[in-house]
């Protein structure tokens, strides 16, 4: 009997050992396989009504061979930036998504700081399929990293009824300079008592749109050297901004609710901004038919065009397990699917930057709110004209400095001095 028990113990022991060793093999086999393929790819974005919804549509539209789940996670944009910075700077890929949406103004800072962390898409997508200006901001060091997503193409949204009251038609505002715009604004205020536009002293989006019409930015081509003092486009934009203030055609607002409130309540005659404002404009249903969209005014300078950009973002694929699958997913959807873009404009109102999509029927739809204008195809055609600039690393940091500089300038300081000061501060801060 004792012998029997001994045998039993030995047998059980052996079985346990065998189980352990086979478990090890499995585990090691699993991990080596996992480096190339995963079951689930994760995507981060921030706006449930916009880019999250677009991801959901893409998930539905995916028709590739890949066998994986797409897990879409909503994070606040600030959180995404913080998590990416924390994760990538510590060199860990743990908890990192496969796909992440990054605002174009911030993209370069990530690409430059963590060049190895992103999976290059140069061989995956065809850069020529997308709006030119997007390529500059989504590529780095000759490699294409981002898959351009929404267009930040800017337009001048105008109230046709107010213009009419002042004796203008939308055509009079088409392809004009900012100076001409100010003149019209004065007339409109005279005739209607309404301000021409809203201005937020703490948000220089207006300045950004202005200088991009001339292909200029806060930084040099290298993306990091501040290009403020002696930047003629910036000087011109500052002067124009001051002219608007002096002409008193701007309604000063301090936040988004006031900005939206101003045009929804009919306080302003025009809204120069990115096309993503369309849904907000349409919120005031009673204003249907009283709006039109014309190309952005340009700086009164040689080479400036009537097309600009505000905002916009692009998809990036992180260099983690499952990157091939993520790339496959993105190429199959945002990278080549014209129908998906049709769905996006129809259902979400998201205007992509995939050029081929503009040929689709959804883009040719006449929008009654805008007096029957083919808004989407107009915006798409302007998209192609946007001068490409390298947004570089420090857009928001420099703008913080510029905001104060602008106040100094508005309150009487010499423009040259202001810009030199700002240049000095920026160089000191960003070094």
């Amino acid at each position, binding site marked *: 009997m004792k012998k029997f028990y001994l045998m039993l113990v030995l047998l059980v022991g052996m079985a346990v050992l065998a189980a352990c060793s086979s478990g090890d093999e499995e585990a090691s086999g699993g991990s080596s396989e996992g480096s190339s393929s995963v079951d689930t790819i994760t995507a981060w974005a921030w706006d449930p009504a916009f880019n999250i919804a677009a991801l959901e549509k893409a998930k539905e539209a995916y028709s590739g061979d890949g066998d994986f789940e797409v897990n879409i996670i909503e994070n606040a944009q600030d959180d995404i930036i913080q998590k990416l910075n924390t994760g990538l700077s510590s060199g860990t890929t743990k908890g990192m998504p496969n796909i992440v949406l990054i605002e174009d103004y911030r993209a370069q800072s990530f690409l430059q700081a963590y060049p190895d962390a992103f999976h290059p898409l140069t061989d995956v997508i065809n850069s020529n399929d997308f709006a030119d200006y997007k390529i500059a901001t989504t590529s780095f060091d000759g490699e294409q990293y981002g898959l351009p997503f929404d267009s930040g193409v800017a337009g001048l949204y105008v109230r046709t009824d107010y213009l009419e009251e002042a004796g203008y038609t939308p055509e009079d505002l088409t392809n004009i300079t900012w100076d001409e715009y100010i003149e019209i604004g004065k007339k409109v205020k005279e005739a209607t008592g309404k301000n021409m536009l809203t201005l937020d002293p703490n948000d220089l989006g207006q300045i950004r749109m202005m200088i991009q019409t001339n292909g200029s930015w806060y930084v040099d081509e290298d993306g990091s050297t501040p290009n403020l003092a002696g930047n003629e486009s910036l000087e011109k934009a500052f002067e124009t901004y001051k002219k608007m203030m002096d002409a*008193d055609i701007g309604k*000063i607002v*301090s936040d*988004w609710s*006031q900005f939206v409130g101003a045009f929804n309540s009919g306080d302003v005659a025009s809204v120069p901004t990115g096309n993503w404002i369309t849904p907000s404009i349409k919120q005031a249903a009673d204003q249907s038919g009283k709006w039109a969209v014309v190309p952005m005014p340009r700086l009164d300078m040689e080479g400036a065009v009537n097309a600009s950009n505000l905002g916009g973002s692009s998809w990036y694929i992180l260099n983690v397990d499952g990157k091939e699958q993520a790339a496959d997913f993105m190429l199959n959807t945002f990278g080549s699917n014209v129908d998906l873009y049709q769905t996006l404009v129809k259902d979400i109102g998201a205007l992509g930057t995939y050029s081929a999509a503009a040929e689709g029927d959804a883009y040719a739809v006449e929008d009654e709110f805008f007096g029957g204008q083919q808004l989407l195809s107009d915006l798409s055609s302007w998209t192609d004209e946007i001068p490409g600039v390298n947004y570089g690393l420090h857009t928001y940091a420099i703008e913080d400095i510029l905001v*104060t500089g602008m106040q100094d300038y508005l309150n009487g300081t010499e423009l040259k001095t202001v810009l030199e000061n700002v240049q000095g501060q920026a160089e000191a801060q960003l070094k």
Partner: protein
Amino acid sequence: MKMKKKAFLILRNNSLFIKMFLIMMLSIVAVSLLITFSSIRMSSDLFMETFSISNTKALEQIEIRFEDYSFAIVNATNEVQNNGTIKKVLTQENTSAIETSKSYHDISRQIERIYPTVESYDTNMIVLGNNERLYNMNYSNWPVSWDVLRNHPITKYTINRPNTLLYQFMPSTSFNDKPMIVATKALMERSTGEIYGVLYFPILEEQWKGLYEGYTSTENEVLLVNRAGQIVSSNKEEMIGDKADELLALAEKVEDEGLEFKDVTISGTDYMLMSQYLPTYDMYLVNLVDKDAVLANLINTKEILLISLGIVLLAVIVVFLISRRITNSISRLVKQISTSAKHEFNRPVAETGGYEAKKIANAFNSMLNELQEYVGLVVQAQQKQRSAELMALQHQINPHFLYNTLASIKFMIQQGKKEKATDMIHALISLLQNALSNVDQTITVEQEIKDLKNYVLINQARYGEGIKVNFFISPDCLDYQLPKLILQPFIENAFFHAFNIQKEGFVQILVSEKGGNLLCEIVDNGDGMEIKGDHTKEDIKEKRHLFSGIGIRNVHERIQMLYGEEFGVEITSEIGNGTKVKVELPLQISAKPKEITSI
């Protein structure tokens, strides 16, 4: 009925075992139950006590966190209140675009400078002023417009209490699906008492609960209840916004009475309630611990019960086996002892079972042995006495018989019947020789018959030849042994009693082997007699008898004493038809019966 009887029998036979087993089992069960429940009780009491201590500590930690939060809010509030720029901008009216732009810029800078004080708590900061002045640091937190906020109930409430920092609860119906807690403070010009703005610190409840969420679990709930009895924040989302006046009353009581904790029952569940008043928030921080759930995690009552059940079962089985073993041997002993009377106390009991049982059986057996010995001695003494009696009887030859016989011989000699007298004397001599020798001896059938013939001869000589005697002896029986003078009394009986009425007849003596026994029959065709119950007849003492003491009754007793009960004398008789006596004896060839040798 039979079953019942059988069951009763089994019960009676096992009563010792049943009693013993039941008592032991009851004690084991009682002891283990008591120990189990008291240990569960003790450990749960101890646990709840330590739990309440650690939870009180946790509550203190939470309170500190809330104080930190409130400190941050107060700091930010003070900074905003004391900030001249902010005051100036908020009270500014009708200025040019450039001036407005500058003031917007300036106030933004100020607010941005102050905002980090509370930003780390994910708290938004909103400054509301007159003239559509609104600064919302995190628009997505609360996308509210100036109009809506200006007319919001919490704004009105705040303006009515300008000196207090208020924490107000905004239920989820407000603008998104998430409830918020908003710290509000009216901005007041101290000198004039004029209110120039309102400061808001809205925080989403789900973020606010981060202050205490780490200390909670499903069975350990934390709630914040405001003065209105409304649950403002809780780790149980479904409770947020509920009215809980009962809870508020309990919390107030705990706080007022300075209790460590209080056992309460809320909607059927037993809780341990701890409470802490947060004065800056004017809220009660309530900690509810679901006792059952907590204890269920700590003590696996089921497992403990199972273990003690297992132990009880094991002990009961062991007790069963052991007591069964002990009582079995005892009751077996009892059974054997109680039946030993049936076996005439000569069967020893088996010495098995435990030590005690063995000892008892041993003692009992030695007692039996001694008893046997004494019984043997008694029997022996009786037998000796019996044979002594017989011997004495045998030796009492009736003097009348001798006298009569001798008188007869004298007459014969006087009549000159010399030959006949000689025969008679011979017969008498032979008869006396046999009669006076040892009564214990057995003799052959042949010898016995010879004696009988002598006796018959004497009698016939004296009383005439009216009674004929015939002997029919099977030749193969001649060598068998039989006790001396066994048949003589019956012939004597026949001579003197069978022929009182009819004076003539015959007596036949038959000896044969039948069914392995020696059968002797004495048959007469005389008067016959009445059998009085007993097969032996009352002896009539008469002078004519050879022996004065030996009667036919003695014969029967003697045979039975010598050979056992299956042997003996049987007498059948019919009035007028004679008497038949059957004497049955074992076939014996050896010299003497054994029993007699041993005496």
